[in-house]
């Protein structure tokens, strides 16, 4: 019985490893990310030019694709509009998973902040600017709670604000490059 159990566990471990390696290699140079694995540069889709859009339409968008220019990797990410500006979060920043998974946030915070966002098939050239101003964070936290946490109850918003203040969640504005 023990032998069979160990054989099954061994097979599952090999399948998990094969899954991670296969999907990581499959998506790493693709046009955009998969659900879990980073992709390559966002190359397809109209490139937005001209005045800033009204970002209110992103209230109906669950995730967007975000690519750093250097290195040109992309991933899916939540998005919040607040006060006419666009923001993206990066959670788990103080956890082991965060240090492993959220390298883009550390890169952006270190100055490699030029990015391309693809929203509903349209690409926008942006610059990631980390936001810590409590006045701005308040509005972002409310929108984040409304969209992704079941509603903007005071406790939920406070929890998100605490997560940001503690450094577990980082908030970046997708600012215009010429700002």
């Amino acid at each position, binding site marked *: 019985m023990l032998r069979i159990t160990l*054989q099954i566990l061994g097979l599952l471990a090999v399948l998990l490893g094969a899954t991670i390696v296969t999907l990581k290699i*499959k998506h790493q140079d693709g046009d955009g990310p998969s659900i*879990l694995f980073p992709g390559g540069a966002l190359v397809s889709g109209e490139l937005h030019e001209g005045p800033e859009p009204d970002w209110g339409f992103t209230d109906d968008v669950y995730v967007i694709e975000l690519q750093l220019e250097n290195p040109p990797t992309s991933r899916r990410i939540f998005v919040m509009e607040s006060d006419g500006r666009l923001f993206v979060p990066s959670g788990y920043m103080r*956890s082991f998973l965060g240090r492993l998974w959220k390298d883009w946030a550390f890169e952006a915070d270190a100055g490699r902040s030029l990015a391309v966002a693809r929203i509903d098939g349209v690409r926008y050239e942006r610059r990631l600017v980390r936001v810590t101003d409590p006045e701005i964070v308040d509005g972002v936290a409310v929108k984040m709670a409304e969209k992704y946490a079941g509603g903007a109850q005071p406790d939920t918003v406070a929890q998100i604000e605490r997560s940001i203040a503690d450094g577990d969640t980082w908030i970046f504005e997708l600012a215009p490059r010429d700002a």
Partner: protein
Amino acid sequence: MTTRHYLITMLAVTALWVVALLTVPPFARLVEQLMLWFLSTNAG
């Protein structure tokens, strides 16, 4: 199962699994959804 048979079975199953991940997009998406669910409930 003897060790030899076990290793042959593991190799065959893994090969089929990898081919399915590469050639059946809905299967790959389902596997990723399951992995994401597991990570989301166990991260932090």
